[in-house]
């Protein structure tokens, strides 16, 4: 694809899909932008009027906004650390020849295939429930008071649930990358006197660099918009303790019927996501080159 001719041909071929995608993206975005400047409440139909920047002012000065922003960053950051770190460990373990390797691998990947609502419900009722939950039972057998996870540590609980869902994804991608590591390199490093830890640090980790980058990028995109897990477990509470930006916009639009305010929130979320993406690409994007 190096010549001028192939380049322009490629451009012509790609344009229909690019145009379609662009409209698909641009139309809702434009509408959201438009609504965000209106005083638009579903309880008062027909009363829409131009509001200027009022919706933005309202959303950004709302104390809930800051706690939601903070929660979003904590959620994304913690899940990234847990899933990449844990995924790395799991991948290293699964790469060892063990009995029943195939079945273990299927088991490991299965959480990823379960719908977020279902897994959140399972966690809520079977694991974290203060009476029937597995954690409560564990606490009781060692003689501790069971805690009500979802109200005592709501954000931690959400982090646990979401991490559980994303761990398999990270594991799978890292395992695939690990299996493409040239055995000779490890043996050469062994001959060169590198201990197990140094071999991991100097050979395995750089080899996995690109895969880790991909995992972080993809997970960040999805983790910024975690919603179902919060809806079915804590409903963002208590207070705003487990509300993230996505959930805050949801409450604005569908619980308070304030379409204008929610649209402003949506635009703010888009801008925030772009800021995160910008720094992320800056920070780790060079791993993807060459």
């Amino acid at each position: 694809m190096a010549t001028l001719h192939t380049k322009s041909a490629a451009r012509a071929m790609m344009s229909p899909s690019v145009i379609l995608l662009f409209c698909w993206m641009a139309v809702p975005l434009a509408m959201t932008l438009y609504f965000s400047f209106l005083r638009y409440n579903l309880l008062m139909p027909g009363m829409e009027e131009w509001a200027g920047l009022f919706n933005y002012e309202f959303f950004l000065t709302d104390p809930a906004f800051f706690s939601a922003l903070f929660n979003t960053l904590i959620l994304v950051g913690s899940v990234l650390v847990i899933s990449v770190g844990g995924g790395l460990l799991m991948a290293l373990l699964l790469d060892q020849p063990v009995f029943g390797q195939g079945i273990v691998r299927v088991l490991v990947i299965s959480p990823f295939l379960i719908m977020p609502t279902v897994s959140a419900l399972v966690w809520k009722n079977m694991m974290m429930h203060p009476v029937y939950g597995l954690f409560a039972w564990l606490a009781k057998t060692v003689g501790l008071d069971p805690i009500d996870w979802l109200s005592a540590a709501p954000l931690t609980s959400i982090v646990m649930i979401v991490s559980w869902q994303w761990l398999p994804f990270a594991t799978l991608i890292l395992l695939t990358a690990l299996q493409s590591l040239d055995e000779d390199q490890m043996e050469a490093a062994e001959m060169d006197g590198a201990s197990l830890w140094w071999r991991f640090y100097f050979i395995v980790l750089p080899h996995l660099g690109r895969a880790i980058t991909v995992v972080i990028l993809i997970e960040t995109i999805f983790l910024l918009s975690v919603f179902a897990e919060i809806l079915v477990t804590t409903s963002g509470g208590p207070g705003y303790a487990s509300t993230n930006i996505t959930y805050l916009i949801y409450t604005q639009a569908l619980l308070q019927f304030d379409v204008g305010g929610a649209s402003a929130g949506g635009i703010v979320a888009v801008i925030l996501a772009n800021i995160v993406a910008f720094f992320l690409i800056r920070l780790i994007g060079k791993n993807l080159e060459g």
Partner: protein
Amino acid sequence: MCTIRLENVTKMFGELAVIPGIDLQINDGEFVVFVGPSGCGKSTLLRLIAGLEDISGGAILLNGEDVSSLPPAKRGLSMVFQSYALYPHMTVHGNIAFPLKMAGMDKAEIDKKVMAAAKVLNLTEYLKRKPRNLSGGQRQRVAIGRAIVREPSAFLFDEPLSNLDAALRVNMRLEITELHQQLGTTMVYVTHDQVEAMTMADKIVVLNRGNVEQVGSPMDLYRDPANLFVAGFIGSPRMNFVDGGNAARLGATTIGIRPEHIGLDREKGLWRGVIGVSEHLGSDTFLHVHVEDVGTITARTGGEWTLRHGETVFLTPDPDKVHRFDESGRSMARAITPDLGALPRHVNGAPASGAPLQ
């Protein structure tokens, strides 16, 4: 200073005895080549010496000390892999410096050694590059550089030249031989290419199915192959083997004659044949001659040979150079004749019945 001694070393992969039992002595400063067909266990044997595989029985001694249970890093050996096994995310400098860094050497010292190694191997201008931006020959040199900076007591090479093109292979062959002369370090070199073995080795170890067929200097193996396998493996083009009546008349099951030990003539000679393919190499010509009752015989002649496909030629083996093998393939005493010009000839100094080769 490093002598390597294998005492009844065996290696099993599950039920499969890849190395059924080898005894071998490698002296200090020697360039030893393991040669044999694909799958005969050369790499396995090298990896056993390196410590990358555990031995199933016997003992490996370095300088008289049993190292069988030592991990590879503790044996003080360096290895160059067939795939080079360079670290792709490190620069050339980083690759060569790696073993020194692992040994905890300080940075100034490392730099000095890396520069010295790079100079010997003509890598100075590539030190900042990553391996993927190097040619095959340069990568090969980096791999060698990484091996020599540690100043190991011996080098192990596993088919280091097999990924290079023919011209480069000849070059690198010379460079490695020169390196050996400069360093004087023991080197063990694995190849399946008998030309590499012949040109580089002080001592060749011919392996077949995990067994040592013969150990000796290149010329020893060339002159006195211990058996059919070695005779067929060493020397290029391959030795001609003739069995049946012609061999029986010399008291052997099979006789072998190298292509370079066959005289060619247009008018007279021992065997009458028809030229099939002739390969012109410039300096030499290899003729594949079809001889009735004997088979296809390869013969070497000078570059200016003018006879063509389909023409008749007479072949006369040099009676001094005829190898005889018994029914189990082992070498018998050489056929000797006091009178080169005349047939009939004598076998083992005693007169043979009639003309043995007719």
